[in-house]
Every structure is written in C-alpha cells, then in structure tokens.
C-alpha cells in the first residue's frame, strides 16, 4: 500500500512535468528519427537520392565560379549512376586549395592553378581543367544601359589603380566616340575575399600594365589602391547594380544572370571583343592546340589571357578540379570510391560538357578533353592504376 502510494505520487509528478520531458525528448527523437527515416521509409519517397550502405558519397569543395555547372552535374550524374552521390560546396578558390591541401575533401576546385608554394604543400596534386570561364568588366553608368562600352587593358589598369578618375576622361572617351560619358567620378568595385576571379583579373591587368605588375601584381587577393570591396561574384554584381558610376569585374555568367552590362575589351589582335562562349572558346582552343602540361606538372604558366587568336576574348581562364595523383594516400578513400571519383570526372569532361553552354560555360575543346583523359589515366590507388 505504502509503496503503491509512493509510486502513484511519483507517477503524478512525472505526468505533471511530462511536458518538460516531452519537449526535450521530442527534439532528440526527431533528430534520431530523421536519421533512421532517411535510411528506411524515405527510401520509397526518394529512390534515387537515398543513402543506403551500397552507396558512395564523394565530397568536394572550392571555387564559386563552376558551382552552378558542378551542381548540375551532381543532379544529372545521379541519373547515370544512382549509387554515386556527389557533394560539392562552393567555398571559394582559396578555400578549395586549402581544404584540398589539408585532405579534408576528396577533391578541390580552383580557378587559379596551384602556385609553386601551394604545390610544395599539396604534393602529387593533379590539375583537371573541367570548364572555362571569362571575367568581364561590368559597369553601371547612367545613360549607358547597354553592354558594349569599349575598354583596353591599360585603361582598365589605370581605372583600377585610381589614375583615371572620371568617366569622361579623354582616354575612355576617345575609345567610345559614339557614347556620351558623364562627368562623374568612377567607383571601382573589387572582391573582398580571396578569389580566383581576382587572380584572373589582376593577372590580366599585370600583363596590360607594367606599372600594375610592379606595384600591385597578380594574386587571389591584392592590396587595392582604391575602390570598394564586396564578397563573392554576386556581392560585386550587386554593388555595381546598386550604385551609379561603378565598374567591377565578375564572371560572365554572373553578369548575364544579374543582367549587368559589360564592356568589350581590346584583344591582342587589336579588336574589341565581346565576351561570348564563342570568343572565349577561341582562346581556349588556341592555347590547347599549343600543348598542355601533364596533369601532375605545374599549370602556373597556362594562361588564356591576351591570346593571339584574332577573335579571342582576352580575359579567360580554365577552372580546375584538383585531385591527388595517388588516391590511396587520401584519408576517407577506398578503391571503390576512388574509381567512382575518376568515373565521375571522366563523365564530367565528356558527357557533362553538354550542360555547359546552357549555363553560360564554354565546353572544353577536344584537345583539353584528351589531355584530361591522359591525366586521369595516370591516377593510381596505392600504386595500382584505377
């Protein structure tokens, strides 16, 4: 009797405070349930994207520029190989190289090839150019709503170093006699984060202006003499759109997506060229026909900038996937996963290129695909070819 009353007392207290317990446990339970649901009952809902023990997940991270393309590959490759799951997170080229070096991801991605210092740290890194991008000078000038302002490399270098201060400066006006440029101060917009786009842009300015080369140079982040900073391609695009008399550099597909007008740039053949898939591809084809380095060699010298082809847009760049030459040395890697990764990249550089044009990317020229395939053949898993 006594024990019974004690038990009932305890029970009633328990019920009184059960709300407290319910809240706590429900939170944990939902977590646990979603875990198990994702493995069982979700399997019926999502037959293709389910994680079952026979599935392989491959993690990659890096450049923001190829993200829309790689993310499309992720979804499309699921249809080809339902048991392989690709996960690519756009954290920026700098982050991609860093995480690849730290071996926290299965593959990295960068718009800039590894520098000598980076290669020393990330030994046996293989570069696989997976697509081609171009950087455009996007602007917001009241009275000039359309693309097609004509600019040259040296003029851009002078604008970004603050030497040309007004839009109606004779140097700009003489290139655009048909346009009425305002008597307003130029505001330059640049990336505030470490960026492959900045690397391509500053490399172009360095090639165009010896003074830029000596004082500022080319890197993923530089000491800007003037202007305002914004994070990411979209940050720069928004800053340009949001304030008048601005000019900044963004990758072509971001300019197209945000409908920002961009300049035609004078190439080394003396023509003012509009950045299009075709004019960018001309540069890539020309460079590839002259021979590309081996996958595990240095790609630092490879450049699509100021290409000699007469119709080539002068500010273009490969963007690279980074994978270790011997995949067996990566943690979190096994032979099946290594094969899945290589198969995915093989697919990406061939069938995957069919998705490029629609998204504003330049499909790889045949020579580049061949060079990539050679590089992939050289990959090993603990010494064995994959």
């Amino acid at each position, binding site marked *: 009797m006594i024990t019974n009353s004690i038990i009932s007392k305890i029970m009633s207290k328990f019920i009184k*405070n059960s*709300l*407290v317990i319910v*809240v*706590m446990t429900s*939170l*944990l339970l*939902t*977590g*646990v349930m*979603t*875990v198990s649901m*994702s493995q069982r009952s*979700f399997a019926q*809902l*999502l037959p293709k*994207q*389910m*994680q079952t023990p026979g*599935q392989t*997940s491959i*993690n990659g*991270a890096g450049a*923001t520029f190829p*993200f*829309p393309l790689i*993310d*499309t590959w*992720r*979804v*499309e490759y699921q249809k080809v190989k339902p048991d392989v*799951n690709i*996960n*690519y*997170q*756009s*954290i920026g080229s700098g982050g991609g190289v860093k995480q690849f070096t*730290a*071996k*926290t*991801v299965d593959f990295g991605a960068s718009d800039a090839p590894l520098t000598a210092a980076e290669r020393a740290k990330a030994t046996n890194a293989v570069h696989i150019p997976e697509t081609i991008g171009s950087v455009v000078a996007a602007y917001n000038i009241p009275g000039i709503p359309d693309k097609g302002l004509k600019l040259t490399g040296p003029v851009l270098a002078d604008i970004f170093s603050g030497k040309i201060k007004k839009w109606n400066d004779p140097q700009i006006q003489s290139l655009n006699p048909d346009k009425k440029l305002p008597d307003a101060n130029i505001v330059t917009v640049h990336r505030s984060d470490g960026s492959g786009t900045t690397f391509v842009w500053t490399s172009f300015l360095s090639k165009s202006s010896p003074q830029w080369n000596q004082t500022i140079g080319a890197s993923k982040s530089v000491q800007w003499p003037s202007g305002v900073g914004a*994070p*990411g*391609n*979209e*940050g720069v*695009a928004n800053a340009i759109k949001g304030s008048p008399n601005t000019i900044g550099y963004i990758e072509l597909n*971001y300019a197209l*997506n*945000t409908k920002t007008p961009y300049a035609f740039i004078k190439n080394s053949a003396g023509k003012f060229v509009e950045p299009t898939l075709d004019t960018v591809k001309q540069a890539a084809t020309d460079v590839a026909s002259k021979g590309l380095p081996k996958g595990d060699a240095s790609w630092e010298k490879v450049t699509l900038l100021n290409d000699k082809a007469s119709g080539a847009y002068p500010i273009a760049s490969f963007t690279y996937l980074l994978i270790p030459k011997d995949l067996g040395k990566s*943690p*979190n890697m096994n032979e099946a996963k290594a094969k899945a990764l290589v198969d995915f990249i093989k697919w990406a550089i061939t069938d995957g290129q069919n998705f490029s044009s629609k*998204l504003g990317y330049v499909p790889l020229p045949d020579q580049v695909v061949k060079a990539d395939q050679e590089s992939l053949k050289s990959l090993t898993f603990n010494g064995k070819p994959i």
Partner: protein
Amino acid sequence: MSSSNNPSSRKEKSSGERPSKAGNNFRQTFQEISIKHASRRRITNKIVSIIAIVFVIGAIIPLASILFEVIKNGVAVLSVQFLTQPPGAIGSDAGGIGPAIQGTLITVGLASLIGAPIGVLSGVYLSEFATTSSVKGPKQRAISFFANTIRLFNDVLTGLPSIVIGIVGYVAIVLALNSFSVWAGAFALSIIMIPIVSRVSEETLKLVPNSLREAGYSLGISKTKITLFIVLKNAKDGVLTGVILAISRIAGETAPLIMTILGTSLFFTSLTGPVDALPLRIWRLASQPYESAHGFGWGAALVLILIILALSASIRLIARGKGIRVRTETI
C-alpha cells in the same frame, strides 16, 4: 495626484486648529505650489509614457518586419517536397532543403547531448559545491578562487566570437579526423552552449530556498542526494529553460558551422561525414545569383524561425504560472 494632495490636506487640518493670517497665507501658497507641481507631474508622466510607448513600438518594428518579410517571401516555397527532398540543381526550382532540416536537428541534438550535461553539472558545482562556508583557511581561498575563475572563463566564453569557436572545431576535430564531420559541428556548438547553460543553472539553483537544503540535512540525507533530488528537482524548470534558451541560440548559429560541417546536398550518412544545416544553407543560398535559390533561402529562414519559435514557446509553457525568473542578461 491624490498622494501629492495628502500633505496639504493634513496641513489644512493642523492649521485649522489655530487660524491665523500667516497660516492662511501659507496654506494658500502651499496649495498653489502643490497644484502646480501636480499638473507638472501629470504632464511629465504623460510625456514619459508616450516616449516609452514610442520606444516599445520602435523595438517591435524590427522583429515584426523581419517576421513579415520572411513569411511573405518564404511561404510560397513551402511544400512537402521542399521539406523532405534534397536540393535540385542550383538555379532550378526542383528539390528542397530536407538535408538541411535533418542536419540541423542532428547537429543541434548532438551538441545538446554534449553541452547540456556539462553546463548543468558545472552550474551545480558553482552553486552547490563551491560554497566556502564549511571549510576555512587556504582550502576556502582555493575553492573560491577556482569557482571565480570558472565564472570568469564562462563569461569570456560567452563573449567569444562564434567564428573563433568554429576555427577551434576545425583545428581540433576536422584536421584530426581529416574530414568535415557532424562531431566537429556539434563540438563547436556545444562550446557555445556550455557557458549559457552553466550560468543559468547556477543562478536558478541559487534561487532554491536554503531551508529546503537544511531540511534535507536534518533528515540525514547525503549532499549528493540533496543536490540531485531536492535542489535540482526544485530548480528543474529553470534549468530546462536555460537549456532550451541555449538550444535556440545554437540552432541559429552559422559561423561555427562553416568551418566544421562544410554542408552537403545529401542526406545524413555518418557522424564522421559532412552534414547540412539550415543557417549554413541560408547563407550559401543567399550568395547565389539565382532567384530560385533566394526563394529557397527565404523558405529555409522561415523553417528555421518556426523551429526556434516552437522552442521559445515551449519555454513559456514550462515557465508559465511557476513564477520562474531566469536571469538571462548573461546571454
């Protein structure tokens, strides 16, 4: 008004006993002054009330406009598919944020399992065991020094930028395991959680009347049992409020997750692999140049706000009618 009149009416009575010319004059001036004062006080009272109401409205405007914006933009994308599916290719309307919702629940749940016991026990120590009344001399000084050091470090930890805690998680766990992982994210979040829970627990336990402890001692119950079954039990609602406050706080953290869980478009696979989380997904989606990605971002923000609102509502339910006052100014 009436209170300001009281002294004058008392004066009236006393002066009424011995009427004199001077007294009448005094009474008159006193009344004038008090009436003048009363009307001035009334006006001041009105002005201050109006200012207070204006500031209250000013404080509500940001919250209301955030809720309005998030609901306006987020409701459109909500659907079963949005809540359960993995994301489709960026720029397309396909898919949802299933992995992010799942990842937030797992990471926050695991972080609470790590952080809540440590936080509560450290609060119990500071309130119950770091008392110095029973010991004297150097031992007393040592205990109070240790307790004060813990309190100081707790406060410092509360003020630490969360991105720094993320870097700690990256160096301590991600680099050690060579993989972005749920563990690293939960570890970083639990570090944010511990000082909040510890502080709130300590304050709540201190509110438990000492007579309850003394009653326990008088019955010969051991200190462990008194702490567990009397003190902690009486302070349970307050302690849980602290835990839930801390959970709401970490559920919205982005910075510690950037460096620890990486994010993924896949559902949970293992505790040692990357996972997604709502705040991280919102941040990534917001930096995409696609309208559909922004729509998804608003939807994810709405889901996150609903989860946190549900947690806050549960605090109200727990604390309702129990007169529990938790000191939250340390949070």
